[in-house]
């Protein structure tokens, strides 16, 4: 932790960055995002096991974007994966954001997409055991049963959009859900509207999801919404051999037209 603070101070003093986006102590044992722009604020930074939020989500916020060059504390691989995917989607220029990765006996400073990729090769992202178990269970279910499972889960949804707001890939300035001319997806949280919302969200993230699981953690009623996108991501990986957050240079699997696509799935 000390080396992280020291590194942050050095970078700020040298003027290489304008701010560090990291974690600070929140109420009770929680950790909350923290923007440090001075040595004094850097001292509040925390780096431990409780720092689970994917900070990449905040990087896309207007207020943070305008601070200038940033360093972000990437204590989890998903933050780096988010940065890679955001670079692939032209939201972050390669090299515009530094990543500070707390590591054994110090802190690692990564500056480019290539460095992120190399680091990620060393620390692969793993799903939690609980998530993996539920995902396997879902995959084993017959279609009708799976549909019923989600219908039941969605019935609790109150459309607070916390899952959307916590997602690093949901950076659109105007979300389709807020589009009311025309209003394709109904606003109220009734059965049809909820289902439409979650299906649209899953489709919009298929092939782009970095699997940080932030959406599931954000849900106030405990719907495992992250498994919808995990499921979609697994399907894309199985079909196309690539998924979200793996590289800053690969074209998106679902949206890329290739004249040599064999289209064998059309029969």
């Amino acid at each position, binding site marked *: 932790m000390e080396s992280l603070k020291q590194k942050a101070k050095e970078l700020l003093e040298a003027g290489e960055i304008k701010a560090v986006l990291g974690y600070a102590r929140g109420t009770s044992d929680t950790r909350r995002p923290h923007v440090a722009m001075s040595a004094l604020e850097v001292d509040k930074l925390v780096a431990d096991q409780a720092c689970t939020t994917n900070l990449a989500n905040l990087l896309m916020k207007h207020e943070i974007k305008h601070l200038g060059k940033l360093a972000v504390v990437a204590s989890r691989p998903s933050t780096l994966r988010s940065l890679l995917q955001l670079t692939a*989607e*032209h*939201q972050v220029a390669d090299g515009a954001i530094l990543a500070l990765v707390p590591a054994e006996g110090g802190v690692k400073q990564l500056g480019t997409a290539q460095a992120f990729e190399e680091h990620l090769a060393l620390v692969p992202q793993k799903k939690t055991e609980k998530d993996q178990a539920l995902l396997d269970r879902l995959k084993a279910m017959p279609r009708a049963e799976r549909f019923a499972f989600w219908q039941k889960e969605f019935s609790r949804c109150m459309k607070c959009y916390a899952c959307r707001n916590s997602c690093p890939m949901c*950076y*659109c*300035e*105007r*979300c*389709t859900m807020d*589009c009311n*001319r*025309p*209003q*394709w997806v109904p606003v109220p949280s009734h059965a049809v509207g909820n289902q439409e919302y979650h299906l649209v969200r899953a489709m*919009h993230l298929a092939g782009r999801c970095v699997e940080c699981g932030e959406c599931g953690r954000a849900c106030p009623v405990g719907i495992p919404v992250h498994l919808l996108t995990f499921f979609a991501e697994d399907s894309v990986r199985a079909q196309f051999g690539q998924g979200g957050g793996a590289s800053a240079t690969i*074209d*998106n699997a679902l*949206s*890329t*037209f290739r*004249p*040599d696509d064999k289209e064998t799935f059309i029969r």
Partner: protein
Amino acid sequence: MSRIGVFTCHCGENIAGTVDCPKVAELTRQIPGVVHSVDYKYMCSDPGQTLIKEAIKEHKLDGVVVAACSPRMHEPTFRKAAAEAGVNPYLCEMANLREHCSWVHEKNEATTQKAADLVRIMVEKVKHDTPLTPIKVPVTKTALVVGGGIAGIQTALDIANAGHQVVLVEKSPSIGGHMSQLSETFPTLDCSQCILTPRMVEAAQHPNIKLMTYSEVEKVDGFIGNFKVTVRKKAKKVDEKACTGCGLCVTKCPNKKIPDEFNEGLAFRPAIYVPFPQAVPNKPTIDTANCTYFKNGKCGVCSKVCPTGAIRYDQEDELITMDIGAIVMATGFKLMQTDKFPEYGYGKYKDVIDGMQFERLASASGPTAGVIKRPSDGKEPETVVFIACSGSRDRAKGVPYCSKICCMYTAKHTMLYKHKVHHGQAYVFYMDIRSAGKDYDEFVRRAIEEDEAKYIRGRVSRIYEEDGKLIVKGADTLMNGEPVEIKADMVVLATAVQSQDRSEDLAQTLHISYDKYGFFAEAHPKLRPVETNTAGIFLAGACQAPRDIPETVAQGSAAGAKVAALFSQDELTREPIVAVVNRQAPPLFSTCTGCFLCQTACPYQAIEQEEIKDRSGRVIKTVAKVNPGLCQGCGTCVAFCRTKAIDLAGFSNEQLFAELMTL
């Protein structure tokens, strides 16, 4: 409130047979916004159109729905009528009561109700329609012809004679193609080169034709009338301007043991070569893969002997980009590799050759000066077996289609052989004789009756060598499958016609479709045989399917006529049905977030990046922009855009929503 007119057509009995048209008119009259609704027997007829035009004026209509057939059939007709009466043509829509309703349903109440619903949908669409103006694009009056065989030469000459510029691109060092390799042509037995070479020279000397030999199309961007084509001019390592074509380098080149492609490997050529004596342009090319200088840096004889100093070892490939208005593909065919037939012993026995090699043996310009000699020992073959359908119509090992030309050229081969070797005997193994064409069947009969070729209906199972003879074992299916064994001196395989190597890559470069055999696909097999599905790109000759010379020339001229028709106008009108990325007031500027996933989704490269800048020139936002000249209105980007920042003019999100919600 809109003032929409609904015009329901009976289409004779086509619609009125199952749909109660007066009832549809009555029901649709009650839709809010509809002020006039009538039915008529034939809306597309002259009185029908007059009825629409007069109603527009009388009722001051600001939108029209014609409930009739498919918009593919008559949309232009009715839009024109609406425009003549002063309504923007894109405020006229068609409800498809024929294909979508009357033809597919029984006559009953529900069918009429569905017809009324289809009209209701289109009324909603018209309410949300915006007036559109067609996009005008200029036409570059230069054509690109890819391939310098007889198809390409004919096309180029026809376009050039119509007064337009043509660039003729050929990948090998000379134009002429397969036809220049042939000895005589069926069904007249006139000398192939004698009729071809004047055309080659004409093409080379035509003031409107720019010849680019030893060149290949690298990249094609743009659209009809406005293609941007990049051609790779491969380095010949010879300065074409300085070279006089004296041929001294060719005679002095010490490396003379390279199999000659023009003679199908039956002779040799040097490393610096002119493919054949009548080549156009008649200037040499260095084959760098076989040249001693390029292999180990020594030699340089050609450079030393050249009287004009035209040899350029340091010459590099050149990339030339051109503005082109129309493209004609005339890339021709290749013959199937004979190594697919080990049972025929090709490659193992020197005297088993393919049809093109026989052409070279029979040609006066060939390696034997037209004397039939077998490749192994140069002896005159006294018995020759011709095997038709070597690979054609063979689902198991070859291609399932008929190569079309083999029956005719095999008959020709037997005649050429008999005319040169009077005591010789030709045998032909065949499956069926396909000789449809002017004077074609008479030609085959002549081969059998006058030149005494023995035709055996059956397949050959095996060929092997014994005592210097090739033993051909087969069956005669007209004699109850009785085994046949012929002791032959030479065997000629009429191998299948296939698409050129890399034709699929080329098709992808040009964004044209191709079939599973790699032949380029025409837009319609009967009614648009020389056009491709990509506007402005046409087809000529055997790159589309196996063809003989008369057909190829006819198609070349047809493609030329299509290009000339295209070039007869100065401007092209394009449908304004294109995608548009929205623009909004600051600070949003556009709901586009600039993820540019639409850019990879667009099959036409129509999406560009646009920087929105403030007054001081600082970039505020980078968003997508659609080039209306390139956009084909397919809507792929619209479907993919997560923020719905893209809309298709004439098919907007709001329109589709309104159409659905009215049901």
